[in-house]
């Protein structure tokens, strides 16, 4: 039984929804998972939506001051599909501004790890991961550009699934980087993710980049399903504690019958600059639409000329957003475009072909993050370069559009740890099969189970 079926079989008291919302509101004032919470009936299974995905007439800001008070006049396709299957919209979840961050700290309301509030929850889908870790019955609609589903899922001890690029419609998603953005899911079990993925995936007339993964799928061999590759170059980037926990996971998988093989992938560390060039270039064009009169917060100084009006309005962006707009604009400049943006697009092509060679023979497995969960104050003191470097394990599948899943595999001093499994394009379900199998032998631990009866 998945938790969705379990929820509908519960014998709930008449005040179930009211008591649940009260508890959630109180906990949320400490953890900052939700930016707003909606009233629900308690009769239908609840889902949350990352704040960069539009919900009709509900404030949607991507955690940015520049979009404050923006009320979308429509639902994103993914929201529409959930509502059509009678799921209840529970609220918008906190995130790094426009998805720019690994720890959730580029938000006015700092998200906190539900296992220990001094620690980060991860980003950019921080609120989605916290909500999943504290609510017994709930599924989160999240989004990943460079690791925004995997990283918080690992730090909050939940399953985070990022499908093949294009598998889920992005109509209604506030773009960060169009060639990288993917809508995905977080849950406490692979079964629930499979159930909801079946609802939200598939072509959409409003998104010409959305595809039918079923039509493209190539049958996998038994060897491919049972082989796991570990990349040799990863070892140089891992904390000693992470290495030791991870080797425990590898032994367990060997005992479960998986063939574990090691392989070289010398381009691994080049995925980071490639990713940041492409994502910043695309972000700088996407963020040009925020001009102070069309969406969100208003600049009412209409007597100013267009350039000063525009410049004044854009002071509402946070520092990381400004940094990315400036760098992204620079790498697209006529004199350097082929040196940075053009070259990065070619390196992406090379990375995809090299990773595909490996993924045709089996999965790629690594820890999701190279470090243990950091304290909020430590993460705050990292330089941008140190920050970007910590995305080394989540960027390769995101840059290449390969489906991947982060699943909890151990706990260190009470904080969860996640591992990330990558599969070939369109083999999304093989990841869910793997995690379902893993869950048979793994006991999830959660500090909160709001919504239990």
């Amino acid at each position: 039984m998945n938790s969705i079926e379990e929820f509908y079989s519960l014998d709930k008291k008449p005040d179930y929804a009211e008591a649940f919302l009260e508890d959630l509101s109180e906990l949320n004032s400490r953890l900052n998972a939700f930016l707003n919470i909606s009233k629900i009936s308690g009769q239908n299974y609840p889902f949350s939506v990352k704040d960069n995905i539009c919900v009709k007439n509900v404030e949607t800001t991507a955690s940015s001051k520049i979009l404050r008070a923006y009320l979308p006049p429509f639902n994103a396709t993914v929201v529409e599909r959930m509502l059509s299957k009678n799921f209840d919209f529970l609220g918008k979840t906190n995130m790094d501004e426009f998805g720019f961050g690994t720890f959730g700290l580029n938000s006015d309301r700092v998200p906190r790890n539900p296992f220990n509030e001094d620690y980060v929850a991860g980003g950019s889908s921080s609120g989605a991961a916290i909500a999943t870790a504290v609510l017994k019955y709930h599924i989160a609609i999240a989004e990943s550009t460079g690791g925004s589903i995997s990283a918080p899922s690992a730090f909050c001890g939940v399953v985070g699934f990022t499908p093949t690029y294009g598998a889920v419609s992005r109509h209604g998603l506030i773009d960060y980087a169009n060639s990288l953005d993917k809508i995905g899911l977080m849950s406490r079990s692979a079964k629930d993710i499979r159930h909801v993925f079946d609802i939200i995936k598939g072509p959409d007339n409003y998104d010409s980049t959305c595809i039918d993964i079923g039509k493209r799928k190539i049958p996998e061999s038994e060897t491919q399903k049972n082989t796991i590759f570990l990349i040799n170059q990863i070892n140089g980037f891992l904390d000693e504690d992470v290495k030791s926990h991870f080797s425990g996971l590898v032994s367990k998988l060997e005992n479960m019958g998986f063939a574990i093989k090691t392989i070289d992938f010398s381009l691994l560390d080049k995925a980071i600059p490639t990713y940041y060039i492409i994502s910043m270039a695309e972000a700088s064009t996407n963020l040009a639409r925020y001009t102070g009169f069309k969406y969100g917060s208003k600049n009412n100084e209409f007597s100013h000329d267009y350039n000063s009006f525009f410049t004044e309005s854009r002071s509402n962006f946070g520092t990381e957003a400004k940094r990315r707009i400036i760098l992204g604009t620079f790498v697209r400049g006529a004199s350097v475009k082929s040196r940075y943006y053009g070259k990065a697009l070619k390196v992406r092509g090379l990375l995809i072909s090299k990773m595909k060679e490996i993924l045709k023979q089996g999965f790629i497995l690594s820890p999701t993050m190279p470090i243990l969960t950091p304290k909020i104050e430590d993460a705050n003191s990292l330089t941008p370069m140190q920050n970007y470097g910590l995305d080394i394990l989540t960027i390769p599948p995101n840059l290449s559009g390969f489906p991947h899943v982060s699943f909890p595999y151990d706990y260190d001093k009470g904080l969860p740890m996640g591992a990330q499994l990558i599969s070939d394009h369109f083999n999304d379900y093989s990841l869910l099969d793997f995690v379902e199998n893993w869950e048979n032998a793994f006991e999830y631990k959660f500090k909160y189970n709001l919504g239990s009866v």
Partner: protein
Amino acid sequence: MNEQEFERLLRICRIKLQDAEREKIKKDIESVLDYFDTIQQIDTGNIAEQYHPIPIDQRLRQDSESAFEDVDLLLANSRTHRFYVVGPKI
């Protein structure tokens, strides 16, 4: 990047920075660009520029008219005069 180039870049981006933020971002940019330059060492040979991670067919829809029901909600996001959106002068 010298001061003049940085100033020009800010103008193109329509971004205004306060002094402290300006120093911090300018310093970060130098090190990030050095890092970006490390991809120059990679031999990409004849590999084509990969705009999407997977091949995507060019799908087009019928160019037809359809009604949008929530015009009031759409316009509620802007300051409007009659059914015009009010913006700055160009």
